[in-house]
C-alpha cells in the first residue's frame, strides 16, 4: 500500500482498551505522516494525557499547539467542547458557569448518553472542517478514549441519531455519522495487546464496526509483541539439551568467558521469551482468524517508558509494514 493511500482519509482514529498503546501508536502514526510532509494534529481524548511526555512538550490545551516540526497536539475535554458548542450553535457570548460545571456535564451526558462522545467528535469535525481554528491540517490522528467499551465512543452518533427524531442535535449527529462512515474522510485503527481480554474486545469491536456501524478500518496493530528471535532449528536446539562446551568455545573465540551461571541465565531468558512468545502467538492467531483486516505486529521495546526515539522506531516499523501491504 502506498503511503499516500494510507493517509488518504484525513482522520485516523486510534482506538483500543486502556493501556494497550493507543497513545504510542497515535504518536507513531503522526510521526510517519509528518515525515511524508503532512501537517498533523493529534487529538488526545484519553484522560491520562501522556502524549506531551512523548514529545517532551508542555501540557496540551483545547486549541492545537505545536509539539515538534509538523506535529500539533490538543486535548479534547467534554466541558470545553460543550462550551464551544454553545458558543457556536447558540451564539452565546458569555457561557454561564452553570453550563460548564462538572455536574451539569455529568447530567447532560447521562440524560443523553452518547452526547459526551458527540461533543468530542464534534471538535474533530470542527478541526476537519477547519472551523473555529486558525490551523489547517492534512492529517488528524485521534487518540480515542479508553474509558468504558471502545465501541460506545464510535457508536454514539448513530445511536443518538436513531434516538432523536428531530432537532439540532439530531442534525449534528447525522453530520458525524456521515464523517465516520465516509472512508475518504475517516478510518479506524484498533490497537491491541496479544493478550486474552484485549483481543476478545478488539474482535467484538472490529465486527461491530464492520457490520453495524459501517465505519472503515485500516490494519489492526498488535502492540508489544516479543520478537521471533530464534529460527525453528534454534528452537529445536533450545528445547533439547544444549552443548554448553561448544557455545563456550564460540564465546572464547571472540574473547568472551562464560561460566555456568551465565549459561543458566542465558537459557532462562531464552525460555522466558519463547514461553511468552508462544502465549502471544495463540492470541495473535485468534486475532488474525477473527478479522479480515491485516494485522501489523509492533515489537515489544525493552526500553520501557518509551521516549521519542523509540516511537520514531515504531513509526519506521509501521511504514515498512504498510508499504508491504
Amino acid at each position, binding site marked *: 500500500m502506498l503511503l499516500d493511500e494510507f493517509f488518504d482519509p484525513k482522520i485516523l482514529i486510534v482506538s483500543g482498551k486502556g493501556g494497550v498503546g493507543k497513545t504510542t501508536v497515535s504518536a507513531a502514526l503522526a510521526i510517519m505522516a509528518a515525515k511524508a510532509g503532512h501537517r498533523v494534529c493529534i487529538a488526545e481524548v484519553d484522560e491520562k494525557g501522556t502524549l506531551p511526555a512523548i514529545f517532551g512538550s508542555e501540557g496540551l490545551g483545547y486549541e492545537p499547539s505545536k509539539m515538534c516540526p509538523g506535529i500539533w497536539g490538543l486535548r479534547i475535554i467534554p466541558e470545553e467542547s460543550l462550551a464551544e458548542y454553545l458558543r457556536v450553535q447558540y451564539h452565546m457570548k458569555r457561557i454561564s458557569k452553570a453550563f460548564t460545571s462538572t455536574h451539569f456535564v455529568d447530567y447532560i451526558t447521562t440524560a443523553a448518553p452518547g452526547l459526551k462522545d458527540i461533543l468530542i467528535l464534534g471538535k474533530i469535525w470542527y478541526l476537519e472542517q477547519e472551523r473555529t481554528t486558525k490551523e489547517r491540517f492534512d492529517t488528524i490522528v485521534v487518540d480515542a478514549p479508553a474509558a468504558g467499551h471502545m465501541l460506545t465512543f464510535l457508536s454514539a452518533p448513530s445511536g443518538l441519531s436513531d434516538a432523536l427524531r428531530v432537532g439540532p442535535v439530531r442534525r449534528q449527529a447525522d453530520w458525524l455519522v456521515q464523517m465516520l462512515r465516509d472512508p475518504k474522510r475517516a478510518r479506524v485503527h484498533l490497537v491491541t495487546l496479544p493478550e486474552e481480554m484485549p483481543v476478545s474486545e478488539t474482535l467484538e469491536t472490529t465486527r461491530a464496526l464492520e457490520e453495524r456501524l459501517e465505519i472503515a478500518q485500516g490494519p489492526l496493530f498488535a502492540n508489544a509483541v516479543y520478537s521471533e528471535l530464534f529460527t525453528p532449528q534454534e528452537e529445536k536446539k533450545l528445547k533439547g539439551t544444549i552443548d554448553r562446551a561448544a557455545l563456550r568455545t564460540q564465546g572464547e573465540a571472540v574473547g568472551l568467558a562464560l561460566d555456568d551461571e551465565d549459561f543458566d541465565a542465558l537459557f532462562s531468558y531464552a525460555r522466558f521469551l519463547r514461553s*511468552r512468545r508462544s502465549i502471544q502467538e495463540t492470541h495473535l492467531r485468534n486475532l488474525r482468524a477473527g478479522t479480515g483486516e491485516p494485522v501489523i505486529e509492533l515489537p515489544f521495546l*525493552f526500553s520501557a517508558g518509551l521516549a521519542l526515539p523509540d516511537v520514531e522506531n515504531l513509526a519506521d516499523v509501521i511504514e515498512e509494514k504498510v508499504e508491504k501491504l
Partner: protein
Amino acid sequence: MSVVSDLVDRKEIIVCAGSGGVGKTTAAAAIGMHAATRGKKVAVLTIDPARRLASSLGLKELSNEPHRVSARKFSAAGLEAKGELYAMMLDTKTTFDQVVMKYAPSREQAEKIIGNRFYRNISSTLSGTQEYMAMERLYELHAEGGYDLIVIDTPPTRNALDFLDAPRRLTDFFESRVLRWFLIPYMKAGGGFMRVANVAAGTFLRIVKRIVGAEVLDDTAEFFGSLEGMYDGFKQRAREVAALLHSQVTSFVVITSPAEQSVAEATFFASRLDEAGLPFGALVVNRVHPRFGDRIEARPRQISKLEQGSAEARLLAKLLENEEAFMRVVELEERNLEGLARKIPRHRWVRVPYLEQEAVDFPGLAAIADQLFATTAPAVRR
C-alpha cells in the same frame, strides 16, 4: 510471613486497588483462592474477570449471588480447599435497584424510579456508579454473608484514585446545586419551563431542552422528584460504608506494575489512602520481569563477530542479545523499585514476577499465590 498473609489472617475485607491492567482481578482471585486453602470461608467479588479466569471460577455471567467454587478445581491443581471459596461478578444495575427498593418510602415510588429512563442511564453511563455499587455490595456481604473474609476487586478505572472519590461523586451529583437550580423550578412549574419564574434558570432550561429534548427533561425532573426524601437514607448508608472501609477489619492492597508511571500512581494512591484515614495494608508489585543472573558484559563488537560465525556462534549471539534486552528492562524496573522503596518501605510490599505462563486458571492463580504468600521473599541476586 508475607504482609499479605498477615492481612488474610487478621482482616475481614481486602480491597484490591490500582490502575488499569496491573493485575487487580488476578490478585483478588489468587488471594481468595489461597485463603480458602487456609480454611477460610471467603468470597471474591470480581468486577471484570478475563473470560478464562471467570470460567475457572465457574462464573458464566454477571451475578450478585455468590457461587461456590467446587473443591474439585482445587484438587485438580494439587491444592486442598480446607475452607470454602465463593465467587461472584458484580451486577451494577441489580445492586442499584436493590438500593432504591431499600430507601424508597413506598414500593410504588421505587418502581417509578426503576422504570425511569434517566435512572436506567445512570447505571450504565454515569461514572462512579459501578464503584458505588461495588461498595454497596461489599457492605451487604459483610453484614449478612457470614464470610470470614471478603476480597473485592475494583473497577477498571484508568486512574486508581477515581475509585476513592466515586461514592461521593454520585451522592454529590444527586444533590447538585446546579441541577436543583434549574430542575426544581421546572418541577414546581409542572414541567412548563415557560412558567419558570427565575429568568436565568428559564433561559438555561430552554437551551437544555433543545439539546436533550423535552422528554428527557421530563424524565430527569421525574427522577429527581421521586428521589426527594431518599437523600438522607443514601447519605446515611454512604456514611456506614465509609465507616466500614475506615475500620480495622478492612485493608487496602494496592497493586502496581514496576513501570515508572504505574509506580508513581501507586505511591500517590497509598498516600491518598493515608490522608483519607483508610487502612493501607500492602503493596503488590506485579509482573516484575524476573532476573536470572548478573549482567553479562558482552561488547557489541563481540556479538557482531559471533553473528558472522557458525550456526553455534549465531545462536550464542542471539542468546546474548536477548539477555541484554531483558537486563535492560530488569535494571530499569529495579531502579523504579528503588525509588518506590524510598516512599513505601519494602516490608510493606510483595513482588510477584511476570509469570512464564498465563495466570487465568487454578495452577496460574496458585503460582501467583505462592509469590504473594511466600514466607521468604524471592532472593534477588545483585
